[in-house]
């Protein structure tokens, strides 16, 4: 649950975005610019957060009236091993060091819905038990704890956004879900499902994930919020929607390797935090993703 410092939105003096080369950063930059908020996006080419001097260099970039948003991580397509985990934690260590030195006005961390354990209930809330199933998700919960400790020590308000799988234009990875389905449908004329694609998931449009993150920035929010929009739908339904829009696309099942698990999110906290937020419908979001991929 989030607690807002500003009940009505207040623009930060500047927003520093960590993870300039990632999926979410361009959308954050675009929306903030449209809102008249100055931004400074920092990517690994400028400051490699795994480097020994990264904390110091980042601290030098930060001002006391900055709001900082961290959307920087080595995603599973870059590696699922221990070495990748440790690099990700080193990145967080650098950021924590910078927070201690520069004490920005507000910090928002982009985490993941993967931190939750859906074994005991398929309906998840911000209060659900965190039990990461893999090292990537473990990394996010470890980073959350690191940032909580550092922000508390530096008296910096911390907001944590846990988005479900994000899709939409500008995806830098190729994970299982809408974006991969669109690519393979356009390229190969087929979409391959894991099993029958029965698993229900929320699919969050990149604009919606960015908007929720920006709302946290504008309200100076502290606490945790899930960025889970719309209804959870099955991968099969997503594939069929894409196939219907593109036409002449085969949706293929494969032998199931893992048991079916569903993940639904309770939208109460999001409704409470940002009642006037309106999510992109899945149909509109998929149509947009297809158009962009077709170069229209």
């Amino acid at each position, binding site marked *: 649950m989030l607690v807002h410092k500003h009940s009505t939105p207040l623009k930060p003096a500047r927003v520093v975005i960590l993870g300039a080369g990632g999926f979410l950063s361009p959308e954050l930059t675009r929306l903030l610019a449209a809102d008249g908020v100055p931004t400074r996006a920092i990517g690994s080419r400028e400051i490699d957060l795994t480097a020994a001097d990264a904390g110091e260099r980042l601290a030098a970039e930060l001002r006391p009236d900055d709001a900082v948003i961290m959307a920087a991580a080595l995603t599973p397509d870059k590696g699922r091993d221990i070495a990748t985990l440790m690099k990700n934690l080193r990145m967080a260590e650098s950021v924590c060091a910078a927070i201690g030195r520069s004490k920005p006005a507000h910090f928002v961390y982009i985490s993941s819905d993967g931190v939750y354990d859906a074994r005991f209930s398929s309906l998840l809330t911000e*209060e659900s038990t965190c039990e990461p199933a893999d090292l990537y998700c473990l990394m996010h919960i470890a980073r959350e704890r690191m940032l909580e400790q550092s922000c508390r020590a530096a008296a910096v308000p911390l907001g944590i956004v846990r988005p479900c799988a994000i899709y939409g234009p500008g995806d830098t990875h190729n994970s299982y879900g809408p974006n991969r389905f669109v690519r393979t449908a356009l390229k190969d004329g087929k979409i391959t499902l894991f099993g029958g694609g029965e698993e229900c998931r929320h699919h969050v449009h990149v604009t919606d994930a960015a908007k929720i993150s920006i709302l946290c920035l504008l309200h100076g929010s502290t606490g945790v919020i899930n960025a889970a929009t719309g209804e959870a739908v099955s991968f099969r339904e997503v594939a069929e929607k894409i196939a219907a829009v593109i036409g002449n696309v085969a949706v293929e099942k494969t032998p199931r390797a893992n048991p079916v698990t569903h993940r639904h999110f309770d*939208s*109460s906290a999001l*409704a*409470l935090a940002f*009642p006037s937020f309106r999510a992109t419908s899945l149909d509109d979001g998929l149509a947009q993703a297809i158009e962009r991929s077709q170069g229209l």
Partner: protein
Amino acid sequence: MSTNHSIGFAGLSHLGIIYSMATAVRGFSVLAFDEREGLATELTAGRFPVSEPGLDEAFRAHGKRLQYTADPKALAQCGLIFITLDVATDASNNSDLTALENLIDRVASIAGADTTIAIMSQVPPGFCRKLAGKLGSRLYYQVETLVFGNAVERAINPERYMVGCGDPAEPFPALYQTFLQAFGCPVLPMRFESAELCKIAINCFLVSSVTTTNMLAEICEGIGADWSELAPALRLDRRIGPYAYLSPGLGIAGGNLERDLVTIQRIAGQFGSDAGVVTAWQRNSVYRRDWVLRRLFEVGLLERPAESTLAVWGLAYKQDTHSIKNSPSLALLRSLFDYRWQAYDPAAIIPTADFPRVRVCSSALEAARGADVLIVMTPWKEFASVPLDGLTTPHVLDPYGVLDGNRCRELGLQYARLGA
């Protein structure tokens, strides 16, 4: 029946007002004490701070046997005194026993050595045994099962009396025995701890039914079933029964059930019992409470705070009561604090200073007039008789199904209720 003995009641909150009245209805002479300023005067005039069906009628018919007083010394004449102060709870539903303990000390210092003292207030297990160490064998704990909105009827015609005793094998004092027999129901003596837990156990079973109903009603919504078609079948099952709590709602509210859940969690923690199911009930209750909030959010009715007007019928936590303790309606008003509201309730009053954007109306139709959505948050019967033709709100959220949903749809209104 009639008796010359006065039966005393100390603490005239909801519990004391209702049970002192029921005792008078059963023919006893009653002395009811509360020293809060002006309260005895108001009660003597028949002006009650609580709203319960049948209360005014009972007062008119039997009030002559009731004497309200602010003087504690008057209790000295009573051979049987009930302690009936409702125990307040905080925002986390924990009991604050301070006022009750002070009242008991006060009464014990006034009552004669042979006076029987029976606690009706909501106390946690262990409370009475400890108190009996001070008061001796004249102490009893009579389990109350007051139901808001049906309290008078249930107090006059109880299903049974459960009485906690220091020694259940000992006979009751004569006056207490006379009192218990006057209600014509089974009397179950048991040790203090059993009686204290019995009250909590009853509430746990109620919450269990409420939660199961709510969970299954939501599944009905998902698969296209209608809970109102299932419920009659369940009531005919002897293992579930005709009076089971099978109406879907917005979670548990009112304060008493919530308090007992917190108490049982604390005891389970103390003794290492698994009370995870209680946590699940609590979680489900909050989830159900927010059903309307989610609906409004998900269909986009909250997009324009500055331009929207929301109408709410019902502020009380349930029908036929004025109580707003843990009311889902007030939780909704707080959640959407920045929105413009028009509200109506037949009995409940809200602190308007806490809700500056809520305009309290004098009728249901006035509250609905010009609103973008009508939300029926409390299932008062009078709402069912409001002429629907007069409604102009494009959306109707009626979780309890008070209104005629088909008629609403015929009128072109978007209608939704729980369980279908």
